[in-house]
C-alpha cells in the first residue's frame, strides 16, 4: 500500500506500476520513482542501521548526499554495493537490501552498541584494540566483520563497460537552472558543449520547484531548453552521468550509468567512463541543504526540508501527516507550504526572532503556526519520530535551554541553510573561501579554466542562478574564442528573503557532552560530543579531527555534515570557521564502480598479446607460450605427452648433437646510421666500436649512468657508417628511447638516425653442429665455411632465393646462424629451413631450451642474472670495458662502492648431491647455524637441469664469489633444509669456446 502517495502531481507515471523487493519484502512503486521515493511512498521509514552504534535510520535526503539509505542492489555477480537509495531509479523486479543490520533491521543485535555509546566515543577502536598487541589477531576478525557496508560480488562481473574519450570547448557539470543557462549560451555561441547531470532528468532543483520561469512551470522551461540543446550537432547531452573527478589540465572524468535504470543483466554497455578534455568548464552542481544538530536528530522521520519538498513535488510522496518544520532560514517555508498543500498539518519552528520574509506571510496566510525564536532540542520516538521538544531560544549558543513545548509529529523537516557543492572546484585545485554573509564556503580563486555558477556559487535565488549561469556561459564561450550569444534572461518568480541565522548546534537542556547524541555526520555516527572529545584530547587541525572522528568519510564524503562539523570544531577551538577551514575534497565525487574504471581492459584485452610472424606455426605444433613482456614466445615443443623437462632435455641434446631451430624474432633491432654513428655508439657501448670491421659483429653491453648493466646484444657493422643493433626482447622500446634521449637532448650535434626494425625483420636461429649444412641444403647463395664467413660476422645472402641477412653468432655456444628476414616471408622461411633440416632431425626449440643452452655457456640474461645493481665487473666482463675511450657509466665504475672486493659477483653453482635443481631466487647462506636473521651471501639467478652434462647447473650472484672458487656454501630451501653447493666457474660447457668457432 502506497500510503504516502499523493493522488496527483509529481513526475511519476501512475500508469506504470513497478514491483520491487526491499529486504525480501514486496512493494510497489511507479515509473519515475527512485527506490527512496518508492519506499517512502510505502511508508517504509526504517531503511538502515547506523555504522557504529547501529541506531535505526531513515531516509534523510533526496540525492547523492543521502547518508543513511545505503543499499545493496541486485544479486550475484552483477550486484552493486553501497548505492544511495535516493539515486537508484526504480525498475520492475528491482531487489535491494540494507547493508547494515543483523539479523534484521527492526531487531539488530549490534544496537547494543548504542546502549554503551558513552564508551564508544571518537577513537574507541584506536584506544581499545591497540593493546595488548598480541591480541589484535583475535580482535581483527570481529572488527573486520562489523566494518564497511555492502558486500563486493564474489564472481566475475558479467557486464560490459567501456571508456570514451571526448573533447569539447565547454563542459557543464550540472543541469539545473545555472548549468542549463550556461550550456544554452555556450551552444548558441557555437561552442562544442558537453552538459552532464547525475540525475535521470535535467533540471536539478527545478524539477521540484514551485517557481515559474517566463510564466511557465519551471519543468516546462527545462524541457524547452533541453530540446534546443539536443538539437545541436556539437552538443552532447548526458543525463545519468556524474562528473566525479576534475583533474589537471581541464581533464574531467564522468561516469555514465547506461542501463542500471532498466534492470540487471541488460544487453549493452552497463556503464561508460567519459574522459573529457575541456577548454573551459562551468561548475553548476548546486548546493546541499544542511541538517540541524540537536538531540536524537537521526531518528527516522527527520529529513532535510528540501528533500521533503522534492518527495512531495517530484515524486508525489508526502512522508508524513503531522509535520514540524525546523529552520534557521527562509527556504524551508516553501516546504511548509508544500506539506500543507499535501494535506499535512504543519508547525514551523524558526530559530530567528524575526522569522521569514515574504514567505513567512504566505505561510501564515495558510494558517500555519510559526514559532519564532524557538528551537527543536530533542526528538522522541525510537524507530520513528513521535514528537519534538521545543524550547525558547535567545540566540546564545552557549546557553542552556528549558523545554517548554512538546509537539507530537511523524515528520520533522529541518533546514540549517545551504552549502554550495564545491567539490569539483576543490578537485581542480581551487580554494574554497568562507563567505561570512552567506555562512558557507564558496568557490574561491580558480586554479584551472573554470567558472562556478548558480547555487554552487552561493547564489540562492532562482533569478540570480539563471543570471549567474548565463554570465558563466558567456564568459567561457568568449574565452574559447566565440562571440558570446546574447541570450535574454528568463524572468523568474522570486520572493524576498530574510537573512539566515547561523545555527551550528542547537543548545540542549543538558551539557553537550551529557545530552542525548547530537549527530553531525549520520553515516559515521559522529556527534557533537565526539568532536569536543577530539579537541579535548589535543586535536586541533581539521584534517586530524576528521580522521579521528571519521567526520566526512564514507559514501557521502561529508556532503551533509561537513560544514556543521567544521563550525562546531571552530567553536570548540574558539576560532573563526574561515581559519579552521575545510578538509580537502578529492575524487570521486560519488563512488564509482570498479567496472567503469576498468572499462574494456579486462580478459583478453587486459594486455596486448604480441605475436611473431611465425606464431601460427608454433601454435599448430603444440607449443605452450611463455609471456615475455607482451610477446608470447614458444616455450617448448612437446612431442607426444612429453612434459617441460622431457621436451627441454630432448631439445637441448638435439641442438648440441645435431641442429635446433628457434624463433628469436622478438629481439629488438635498430638501424643506426649517419656520419657520427661510430662516435655515438662509442659513447653508448663499453667496447671499442670503431675497431669493428665492416661485415663483423660484436657483443655489446650498455650501462646506465650508474655504471650498472642496462642492456646487451649483438651489433653488426653493415657499412662504414651503418650499424645493425640488437637489444634484449624487453629492451627494444626502452633502449631506442634511451638512445634517442641522448641524441636529441644531450648530443644533438651528432648526425645519427635511428630506426626501429624490430617488427620489420624476423630472426630465425639455426644452431648446432649441422646448422651450416641445413643452410646449404636450403640453397644459400654464399659460402658458409669458416674462412669466408667466420664466427661473429654478417653477410647479405639469398636463401632459397629470398634475400636475408645472415649473422654468424651464437647464443648456445654451438656453430650457429641467425637468419634475419623480412617478416612477411618469415613463416615461409621457417618451413623451408625445417624441410632443409629434415635429414638432421632439425628440432624446434623454445625459450626454455634457449635458457638452458646459454646458461651452460655462462651467458647472462640482462634482467634475469642482473637486476639493475650489477656492473660488468661483477659479471666478470672486464674484457668488455674499453680503456681507450669514455662511455656512459664509465665514471661510475670507479666509485668506491663499485670497487669493493665483496660485491656480489657472477659464479656458477653445482649442487653437491648432483641432483637438486635449486629454485631461482634461492638465498645462499654460509653459516647454517646462524640465528635469524641469517646473513645471506648471495642468491641464485638462473637454475636448470642440464641434460648435456647430466646434472643441475646454476648461476648465482655471490659476495666476493670469484675468489671463493671451489668453496662450499648452502642454498636455503623453502622447506627449511640447507643444500650444500659448490662455487664454480660460470662456464659449464666448452670453456674454450671451440664449438661455436668451427
Amino acid at each position, binding site marked *: 500500500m502506497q500510503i504516502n502517495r499523493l493522488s496527483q502531481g509529481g513526475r511519476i507515471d501512475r500508469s506504470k506500476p513497478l514491483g520491487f523487493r526491499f529486504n525480501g519484502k514486496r512493494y510497489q512503486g511507479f515509473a519515475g520513482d527512485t527506490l527512496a521515493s518508492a519506499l517512502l511512498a510505502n511508508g517504509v521509514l526504517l531503511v538502515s542501521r547506523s555504522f557504529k552504534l547501529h541506531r535505526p535510520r531513515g531516509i534523510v535526503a533526496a540525492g547523492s548526499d543521502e547518508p543513511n539509505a545505503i543499499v545493496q542492489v541486485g544479486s550475484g555477480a552483477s550486484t552493486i554495493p553501497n548505492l544511495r537509495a535516493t539515486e537508484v531509479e526504480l525498475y520492475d523486479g528491482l531487489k535491494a537490501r540494507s547493508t547494515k543490520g543483523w539479523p534484521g533491521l527492526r531487531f539488530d543485535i549490534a544496537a547494543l552498541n548504542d546502549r554503551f555509546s558513552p564508551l564508544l566515543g571518537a577513537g574507541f577502536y584506536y584506544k581499545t584494540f591497540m593493546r595488548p598487541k598480541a591480541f589484535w589477531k583475535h580482535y581483527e576478525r570481529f572488527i573486520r566483520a562489523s566494518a564497511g557496508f555492502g558486500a563486493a560480488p564474489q564472481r566475475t562481473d558479467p557486464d560490459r563497460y567501456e571508456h570514451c574519450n571526448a573533447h569539447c570547448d565547454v563542459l557543464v557539470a550540472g543541469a539545473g537552472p545555472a548549468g542549463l543557462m550556461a550550456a544554452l549560451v555556450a551552444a548558441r555561441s557555437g561552442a562544442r558543449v558537453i552538459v552532464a547531470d547525475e540525475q535521470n532528468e535535467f533540471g536539478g532543483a527545478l524539477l521540484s520547484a514551485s517557481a515559474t520561469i517566463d510564466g511557465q512551470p519551471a519543468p516546462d522551461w527545462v524541457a524547452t531548453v533541453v530540446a534546443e540543446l539536443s538539437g545541436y550537432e556539437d552538443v552532447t547531452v548526458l543525463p545519468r552521468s556524474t562528473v566525479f573527478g576534475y583533474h589537471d589540465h581541464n581533464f574531467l572524468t564522468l561516469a555514465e550509468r547506461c542501463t542500471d535504470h532498466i534492470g540487471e543483466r541488460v544487453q549493452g554497455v552497463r556503464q561508460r567512463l567519459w574522459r573529457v578534455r575541456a577548454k573551459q568548464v562551468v561548475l553548476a552542481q548546486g548546493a546541499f541543504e544542511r541538517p540541524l544538530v540537536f538531540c536524537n536528530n537521526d531518528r527516522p522521520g527527520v529529513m532535510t526540508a528540501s528533500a521533503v519538498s522534492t518527495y512531495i513535488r517530484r515524486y508525489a510522496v508526502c512522508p508524513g501527516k503531522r509535520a514540524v518544520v525546523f529552520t534557521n532560514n527562509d527556504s524551508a517555508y516553501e516546504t511548509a507550504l508544500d506539506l500543507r498543500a499535501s494535506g499535512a498539518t504543519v508547525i514551523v519552528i524558526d530559530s530567528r526572532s524575526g522569522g521569514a520574509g515574504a514567505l513567512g506571510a504566505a505561510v501564515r496566510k495558510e494558517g500555519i503556526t510559526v514559532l519564532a525564536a524557538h528551537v527543536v532540542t530533542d526528538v522522541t520516538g525510537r524507530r520513528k519520530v513521535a514528537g519534538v521538544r521545543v524550547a525558547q531560544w535567545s540566540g546564545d549558543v552557549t546557553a542552556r535551554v528549558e523545554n517548554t513545548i512538546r509537539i507530537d509529529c511523524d515528520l520533522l523537516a529541518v533546514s540549517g541553510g545551504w552549502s554550495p557543492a564545491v567539490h569539483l572546484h576543490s578537485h581542480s585545485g581551487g580554494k574554497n573561501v568562507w563567505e561570512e554573509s552567506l555562512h558557507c564556503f564558496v568557490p574561491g580563486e580558480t586554479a584551472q579554466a573554470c567558472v562556478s555558477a548558480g547555487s554552487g556559487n552561493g547564489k540562492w535565488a532562482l533569478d540570480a542562478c539563471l543570471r549567474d549561469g548565463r554570465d558563466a556561459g558567456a564568459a567561457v564561450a568568449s574565452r574559447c574564442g566565440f562571440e558570446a550569444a546574447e541570450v535574454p534572461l528568463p524572468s523568474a518568480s522570486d520572493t524576498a528573503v530574510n537573512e539566515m541565522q547561523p545555527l551550528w548546534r542547537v543548545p540542549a537542556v543538558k551539557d553537550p557532552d551529557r545530552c542525548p547524541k547530537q549527530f553531525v555526520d549520520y553515516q559515521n555516527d559522529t556527534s557533537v560530543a565526539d568532536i569536543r572529545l577530539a579537541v579535548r584530547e589535543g586535536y586541533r587541525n581539521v584534517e586530524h579531527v576528521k580522521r579521528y572522528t571519521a567526520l566526512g568519510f564514507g559514501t557521502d564524503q561529508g556532503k551533509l555534515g561537513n560544514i556543521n562539523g567544521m563550525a562546531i570544531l571552530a567553536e570548540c577551538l574558539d576560532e573563526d570557521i574561515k581559519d579552521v577551514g575545510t578538509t580537502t575534497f578529492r575524487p570521486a565525487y560519488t563512488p564509482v564502480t570498479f567496472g567503469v574504471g576498468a572499462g574494456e581492459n579486462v580478459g583478453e*584485452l587486459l594486455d596486448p598479446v604480441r605475436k611473431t610472424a611465425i606464431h601460427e606455426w608454433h601454435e599448430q605444433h603444440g607449443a605452450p607460450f611463455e609471456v615475455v613482456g607482451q610477446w608470447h614466445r614458444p616455450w617448448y615443443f612437446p612431442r607426444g605427452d612429453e612434459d617441460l623437462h622431457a621436451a627441454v632435455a630432448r631439445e637441448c641434446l638435439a641442438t648440441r648433437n645435431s641442429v635446433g631451430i628457434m624463433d628469436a624474432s622478438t629481439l629488438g633491432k635498430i638501424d643506426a646510421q649517419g656520419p657520427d654513428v661510430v662516435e655515438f655508439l662509442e659513447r653508448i657501448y663499453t667496447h671499442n666500436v670503431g675497431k669493428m670491421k665492416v661485415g663483423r659483429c660484436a657483443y655489446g653491453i650498455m650501462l646506465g649512468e650508474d655504471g650498472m648493466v642496462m642492456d646487451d646484444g649483438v651489433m653488426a657493422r653493415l657499412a662504414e657508417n651503418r650499424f645493425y643493433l640488437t637489444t634484449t626482447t624487453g629492451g627494444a622500446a626502452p633502449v631506442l628511447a634511451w638512445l634517442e634521449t641522448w641524441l636529441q637532448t644531450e648530443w644533438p650535434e651528432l648526425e645519427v638516425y635511428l630506426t626501429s626494425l624490430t617488427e620489420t625483420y624476423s630472426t630465425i636461429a639455426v644452431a648446432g653442429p649441422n646448422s651450416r649444412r641445413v643452410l646449404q641444403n636450403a640453397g644459400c647463395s654464399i659460402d658458409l665455411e669458416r674462412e669466408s664467413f667466420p664466427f661473429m660476422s654478417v653477410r647479405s645472402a639469398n636463401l632459397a632465393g629470398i634475400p636475408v641477412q645472415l649473422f654468424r653468432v651464437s647464443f648456445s655456444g654451438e656453430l650457429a646462424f641467425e637468419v634475419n628476414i623480412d617478416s612477411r616471408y618469415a613463416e615461409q622461411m621457417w618451413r623451408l629451413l625445417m624441410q632443409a633440416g629434415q635429414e638432421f632431425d632439425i628440432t624446434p626449440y623454445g625459450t626454455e631450451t634457449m635458457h638452458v643452452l646459454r646458461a651452460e655457456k655462462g651467458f647472462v640474461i640482462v634482467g634475469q642474472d642482473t637486476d639493475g645493481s650489477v656492473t660488468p665487473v661483477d659479471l666478470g666482463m672486464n674484457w668488455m670495458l674499453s680503456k681507450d675511450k669514455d662511455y656512459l657509466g664509465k665514471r661510475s665504475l670507479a666509485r668506491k662502492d663499485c670497487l669493493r672486493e665483496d660485491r656480489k659477483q657472477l659464479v656458477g653453482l653445482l649442487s653437491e648431491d648432483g641432483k637438486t635443481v635449486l629454485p631461482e631466487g634461492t638465498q645462499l647462506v654460509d653459516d647454517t647455524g646462524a640465528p635469524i636473521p641469517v646473513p645471506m651471501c648471495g642468491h641464485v639467478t638462473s637454475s636448470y637441469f642440464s641434460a648435456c652434462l647430466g646434472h643441475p647447473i646454476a648461476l648465482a650472484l655471490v659476495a666476493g664469489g670469484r675468489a671463493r672458487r671451489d668453496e662450499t656454501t648452502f642454498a636455503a630451501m623453502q622447506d627449511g633444509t640447507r643444500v650444500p653447493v659448490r662455487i664454480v666457474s660460470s662456464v659449464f660447457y666448452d670453456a674454450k669456446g671451440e664449438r661455436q668457432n668451427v
Partner: protein
Amino acid sequence: MSDARTRVEVLAEIGHINLRGDPGRGAFREIAERVLGQPLPITPNTVSEGGHRVCWLGPDEWSVVTAAGDAGVLLEQLQTALAGEHAAVNDLSGGLAVVRISGADSRRLFARGCTLDFHPDKFVPGSCAQAGLAKASVLFIHTGGRDVFDLVVRRSFLDYMVRWLRHAGAELDIEFH
C-alpha cells in the same frame, strides 16, 4: 543502407618506406621530393598525396606509404639519390599492417580508445597522427575520402588491434572484413 555501415578491413600489399633527413639542410628535401615526385609535408601531422602517400611523422621523419610492389624500387632510388646527404631510408613494409576503417561510426570507434580529437573540423582530410589506440601505437591517416581512415599498426599488434576493434565496435554499426 549498407553505405552507412562502418567497415573494418585489413589491407594487403602496402609498402612503407621510412625516411629520415633534415629538410632545412643540404639538398635532402629537394632530392627526396624529386625522387618521390611530390612534396614532403612540412606542416606537422599532414599528408602529401601524389604517386605515394607521404605522412609527416616528425620534423625529420616521414612515412611513405605506397604499393608493396613499388617499395623496393623506391627504397633503392632514395638510397642512391640521398647517398651524399645525411639521411636514412628503411623499408619497413615487413613490420607494418594497415587497417582501413571507413564509415560514419569510425570516429566514435576511435574515441573508445584514443585520446585525440577526431572531430571532423579538427582531424580533417589529409591529417595524420601517431597516437595510442587502446594499448597499441598507431599511425592514423585521414585518407581524404569521406570518413575513410587508414590505421598503420605494428604487425605483432595486429591480432590484438582487430580483437579490440571488434570489442569496442560491438555497440556500433560495424562490419568486419
